[in-house]
């Protein structure tokens, strides 16, 4: 469990750009279950570097409210995010939000996949594909635009 927690531990460095101020974490967080806490909200403060760390938030199955994610949930989510190339088998479904709107989670195969290939003359051809299968087809294609 503690190893999973380390998945969401963070590193921080501080940098300041001329137009943008921000901060990144550099120190590893304690490898313990996080204490329940309200979901922190990002804020900006007059150009001061902004740092929000240790946020592990999930939607509670029972209450529907945000709560800190457990280590197991965080690990599961990380794994699923990494499987973005695995199309979701279940069809997307509509649900009603708290404000009364209707929402649908877009399936992975509706994401835009930005792709590139190197042509025979060394030039790059970039493009976009619809879903992972189309993306793989694009990068496997060997035609060159300047040739007939």
């Amino acid at each position, binding site marked *: 469990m503690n190893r999973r927690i*380390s998945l*969401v*531990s*963070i*590193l921080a460095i501080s*940098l300041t*750009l001329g*137009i943008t101020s*921000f901060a*990144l*974490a550099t120190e*590893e967080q304690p490898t313990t279950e996080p204490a329940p806490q309200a979901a922190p909200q990002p804020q*900006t403060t007059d150009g*001061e570097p*902004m740092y929000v760390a240790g946020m*592990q*938030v999930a*939607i*509670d*199955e029972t209450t529907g409210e945000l709560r800190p*994610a457990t280590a197991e*949930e965080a690990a599961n*989510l*990380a794994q*699923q*995010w*990494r499987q*973005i190339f695995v199309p*979701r088998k279940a069809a*997307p479904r509509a649900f009603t939000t708290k*404000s*009364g*709107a*209707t*929402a*649908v*989670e*877009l399936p992975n195969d509706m*994401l*835009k*996949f*930005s*792709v590139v*290939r*190197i042509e025979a003359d060394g030039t*790059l051809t*970039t*493009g*976009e*594909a*619809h879903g992972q299968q189309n*993306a*793989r087809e694009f*990068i*496997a294609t060997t035609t*060159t*635009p*300047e*040739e*007939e």
Partner: protein
Amino acid sequence: MRTKHLSRLTLLVFAGLLLVATLPASAANVVVINFDPPGVGLNDPTPVAPVGGNPGTTLGAQRGNVYLLAAQIWGSTLDSSQTIFVAAQFTPLPCSPTGAVLGSAGPTFVVTDFPGAGFPATWYSSAQGDALSGVDQVPGFVDIGSSFNSDIDDDPNCLVGRQWYYGFDNNQGGDLDFLTVVLHEINHGLGFLELVDPNTGALFFGQPDIYTKFMLDLTLSTTWDTMTDAERLFSQTNSGNVVWNGSNVTNQAPSILGPRPSLKVLQPKVLKGSYEAQAASFGQPLGGGGGTTGQIVLADDSTGVGTDACEPITNNLNGKIALIDRGGCAFTTKVANAEAAGAKGAIVANNAPDGPAPMGGSDPSISIPSVGITLDLGNSIKAELPGANAKLLLDDDFLAGTTQDFVRLYTPAVVSPGSSKSHWDTSAEPSLLMEPSITPNLESATTLDLSPAMLQDIGWVLLP
């Protein structure tokens, strides 16, 4: 029971790392959430030298800085009281020595019938739904997901010889400008996309998205939201005739787009007029005003298909404009042969009915201008030879990438899934951020060119 469907979207933040752009109070707050574990991706500690204005000294820091600059650029463009959450990740994605998936991105949710929606029964991106309603419509979820290929930097067998470029200065050379790609992909997530099924023409969940309301087919004289499925299937390949019908884009286009590459036929009278052409990516650039004028002569290399100019040309083209058929060899070979035969310019007629010949390639030894034209125009000119005179030029009377003054959407004759419809057409000059390909003449992605106007058309409020 929503947690049973835990996915990349069911988490607001777990990676514990936020990159927050500091912006004017009225600007949208675009928060980039780092989903990478320690030591990799956005946290990669590999030392690197600062590059192109990016002060990061580790690979992870440079990647994060680019994300953050993109967030700052979009945040300083849009007015929203609601934070826009962008999930960010670098991870190994499909790659080979010659091809790679750069990344993937898009809205995580679409929402409809929320307070403040411009149209009922219309899908909006999650970020726009939040902005228009002033409420986080799907709290606890990121608005835009994005993931980029770390192997381009990390795997020597991935896209050999090319890497991500993390500078801010558009000086990527032969590498891949990460800032351009991120700006482009976030734009999709903000609403620059349509959700129509490219195989059936069906609307998403039976109702239009806001983008389709501005997709006008000039042949059918109707917009995509009111078409039948069959009409949408026709329209998605109606090249050159599907345009953006939004007043902000149309009004701004003249300040963004340049004159149209054209072949102006001066004689015979029956063909007199200005025809859209594809400027070559090599040779002398087309000029405005006078352009390059001359008599058109059909090239003949006396070998195989004699008009393809794939071998040295045998007829006299001295001071003429060579007319050449597409096929058999590279465009650069054809034009080089025409120049060697004395031509002052060259025209390549397409060999298929899908627009002007594309005229790609590179050959610094070529010094004459050349253009591609359609199969139909090529045949019409051939029927009038001898006796045809024409001018190759940038025609100030027309804007590149437009039809009837509307900016075109990318609807090639053969559907290109992922690229068709949700981009500007590639005939735009100069190139635009939201074309399907990153082209060398994209002058600067950071200006966002027509993208803010497009977002304004669909209902976003822009900062002054």
